[in-house]
């Protein structure tokens, strides 16, 4: 092949959109690394759990929970589904579950600040009080009009995933809520 064309370059989902800062709140893009959805088959869940333990030393996350291991993290992602992030999935997994690459499918951001809860209270309909949704909790829910994955990483920090194509809307919605909260002074 001739080489008439410049090399391809990669672009992140939130390129040009982030960071955003309003008062003491920030939204920044998160580099999640490889992201893979793992989905269990009916009747073979036990072998799938074992494959995950063997391959990554991770337990399959119970609904609404997350787990962490050696450079890898796993988020409950729906009915019989989990999102493995930060590592290339071990080859042994594919024999026991559906494994789909999602590394480029999701825009991932951190919402950080003391009032992070107040911002999400304006966008997310579920109960995110820390007593109910402590650090390490995750949920598939909606953020404004978008479906989203929301994980509490710290008292003042959430990880938010939405479809890549909706990154601009995510930033718009977060920013609008942040500005309204900040304007209360």
């Amino acid at each position: 092949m001739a080489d008439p064309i410049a090399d391809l370059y990669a672009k992140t989902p939130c390129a040009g959109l982030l960071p955003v800062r309003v008062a003491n709140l920030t939204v920044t893009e998160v580099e999640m690394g490889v992201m893979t959805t793992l989905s269990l088959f009916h009747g073979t869940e036990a072998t799938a759990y074992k494959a995950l333990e063997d391959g990554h030393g991770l337990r399959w996350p119970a609904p609404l929970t997350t787990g962490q291991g050696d450079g890898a993290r796993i988020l409950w992602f729906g009915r019989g589904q989990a999102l493995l992030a930060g590592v290339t999935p071990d080859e042994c997994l594919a024999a026991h579950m559906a494994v789909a690459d999602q590394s480029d499918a999701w825009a991932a951001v951190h919402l950080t600040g003391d009032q992070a809860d107040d911002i999400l209270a304006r966008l997310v309909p579920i109960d995110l009080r820390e007593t109910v949704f402590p650090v390490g909790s995750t949920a598939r829910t909606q953020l404004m009009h978008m479906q989203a994955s929301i994980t509490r990483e710290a008292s003042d920090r959430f990880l938010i995933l939405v479809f890549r194509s909706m990154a601009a809307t995510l930033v718009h919605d977060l920013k609008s809520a942040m500005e309204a909260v900040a304007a209360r002074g």
Partner: protein
Amino acid sequence: MRVPGKGLVERSRVVPFRFDGVQYTGYEGDTLSSALLANDVRMVGRSFKYHRPRGIFTAGNEEPNALVTVGVGGRQEPNVRATMQELHEGLEVRSQNRWPSLGLDLLSVNDLAAPFLGAGFYYKTFMWPRAFWEKLYEPAIRRAAGLGALSGASNTDVYEKAHAFCDVLVIGSGPAGLMAALRAGRAGADVILAEEDSRFGGRLLAEEEAIDGQPGHQWADDVVAELRSMPNVRLMSRTSVTGAYDQGTYGALERVGHHRRRRPGLPLECFWRIVTKQTVLAAGALERPVAFRNNDRPGIMMAGAMRAYLNRWGVSPGKAVTVFGTNDNAYRTARDMAQAGIHVAALIDSRHDGPSSDLFPVIRGAQVCDAQGRRGLESITVRRASGEERIQTDCLAVAGGWNPTVHLTCHMGARPVWNDELLAFVPKDDAVPGLIAAGACNGVFSTDGCLRDGLAAAGRALQALERSAPEVDLPEAEDAPYQPDRLWAVSGKGRAWLDFQNDVTVKDVAQAARENFRSVEHMKRYTTQGMATDQGKNSNVAALAVLADATGRDVAETGTTTFRPPFTPVSIAAMGAGGQGDGFAPERFTTSHAASKEMGAPMIEAGLWYRPSYFPRNGERTWRQSCDREVNMVRQSVGVCDVSTLGKIDLQGPDAGAFLDLVYTGMFSTLKVGRTRYGLMLREDGHVMDDGTTARLGENHFLMTTTTAAAGEVMRHLDFVHQCHAPQMKVRFASVTEQWAQFAVAGPKARDFLNLVLDELVSNVDWPFMACGPVSVLGVKARLFRISFSGEMGYELAVPSRWGDSLFRALVKEAEKMGGGAYGMEALNVMRIEKGFITHAEIHGRVTAFDIGMQRMVSQKKDCIGKRMSERPGLMDQGRARLVGLKPVGAVKMLTAGAHLYARDADPVRVNHQGYVTSNCYSPTLESVIALGFLHYGPERIGETVKMVDHVRGIEALCEVVNPVFLDPEGGRVRG
């Protein structure tokens, strides 16, 4: 006027404001109504129907008269209750429903016509001629009768909505609410205390009364300070709880910006959805008036309101006040006024056995039967057994008893219960699951009783939460009995007002009863009582009591109308907060969006996606020029189009093939690895749901594509089929639409072009039509599918989305070197019509596989979702409207989608309808307008001339029925 030494306003902070263009001042802590009364402004509005002068009537959310317009332009807000509007610097307020001014209102002529304008007048008078209602009567009535108006400009204010969660929601912060919140807070429960007022304390702020030896408002401040110090308690002031809904959900409206000078970004209101496990409703009670002739004069107000103006805001609404009551509350008002140094001319007690006083004259066994003074009260007429007398007074306070605020307890269908001792409706137990009514809203009217009731309610709530309830000392407070007299309306001539806001009188209710509108619901609708913005808060009970008297029933038997949310007006903008402008819906952008915009492409919405319509080039003045060029470009050379928006669903598992056999009409389990097949999907009712191609990437691995618009619907359908019809199947699916940026490369030069960018060459032998597999493009791992939606040799190249932007730019640049380039949705649409390919314009939900000529794609070797239902009688009738192509053959060369088809010589009327046009375009390839449509017996009529009529656009054209595949019906081009 202000009363020295009284009130809780901050007298050191003077606040200027304007009412109807006149500058006034008030103090921090004032409401608009207290400030207007302090400035001796008595007339503040005109009534709805008769345009009678009206003054401030209450001090709370039930205010029927003092409605004003705040702000100007897009921010103009009508019907703001002056009693709820806090004073702030820069507040600019106008009165409503008057022309040309409040003092001189020409429409007050309506009042002279009152004998003709009673209940049912409109229904009887404006019935004929029939056409006059819409054209003449209604517009004229609307102009004369009405409240405030919107500006017509788009509202520029920001609104918010938000969610909150708690264990115990306490609604109201009077003595009952504060005790409940204190106990629940000390128990460690998550508590939200919602108070409609700007300040916590409820009636304690309005009364001269002691709790534990200190003034009530100070006791309230102390409790609030303790609550504020608890991390588990959230205090929400200026928040009206507006509705009770299922599963412990409450709507609440917070006034965020109304009480402050406007500043950018500050929301005006926030609409909360509060979800709680237990609720203590401590909403208090609303005082009710007694109806008598001319009881709507400015200067007549509620007795409790008069005390509130005096004790909270240090304002006396008059110089010589009188009080008319049916219970001891009247004495409280007269006592407070007299002790503050205001002249109390008389207290008129309807009872014969009321107490006496040495502070003011008391007239027992008497009634006020008339009031004089058109723009402001001048005197009242008092009727006794011995005769009538006039008393000079500029302000009359009326104490007709208390109506518990039962509204929220009725929001889930329960009716309140009549209590004949209290002469009031009280909440039904467990009317709303998890809600406990306490205090005045529960029919407990002494302060001591309210404190006890609040404490007990919290105890019950904590018990339900399985938490231990801490002991809280009960403070000492008054415990006076409440024994009201049964008096709803004073008999006599003239008009006695019940519903001030909608101008409904005692006569109107009696008239309704006479005309047999005896049900309370009928009376309400016939008279419009309770149907204004105040929802009849201070007139409902009296109106139905009057109805009960008129129909010879008791009140309990008469019953109430239905209390529905919202309790207090909620702006639509608050409920739809965030939905304006860019917040209306998510915008989905492809990875090539920025590059397409740079190329000047106008965007077209496809579902939530934005797709380039066409790519204009120099010299092109219309979209058609660009579109025609792009079509010719693809037909002759090579074009590149972003097709990432099509849904992509990754299916894996040992049963994936069998699952696809179930959801598609065709057979997929036999598809070879490395091959793609076109599939048609039916709904359960047998009609076509969606179409697309599915590729087999591995033995247990398929990739399905859906149309852009139906991606979500198909995903949901697959989940439904899997979970409900085939849960035993070992198959899972995941949306990978967003993972891949996918570009169609189409045209006779497509393969030559691809071989410039692929790392390994592709040939027609290795990559025949419908082949698929992994490739590498410019060093990036990719997937290649040989499929075509244009009828040309076509490929689709997919890369992980991060590479999408740069790959699209590279592909377009290279294609342009070969005489090709990017093409948009318009060209894509033209080419698919030329090929007779369907989109959702054709598969619009009412067509079957038979209708689109794809019956042979429904495999006879297996079952599939929708197959049996598609075989119902009539769904495969030859006479159905079936897919055909159309070409104009007459003088008019225009075909339009949405037009209807008729036999050539038939009248173009409904009964002769034979079909319709679904898609149309100008085909530069065929140099003709072409269209797709559905026609009775379609395929059997090829060659026939039919008539197309577009009644909307006024177009009529003769067209020939042709094969829907206009171009290359053999398909030689795609295989080349």
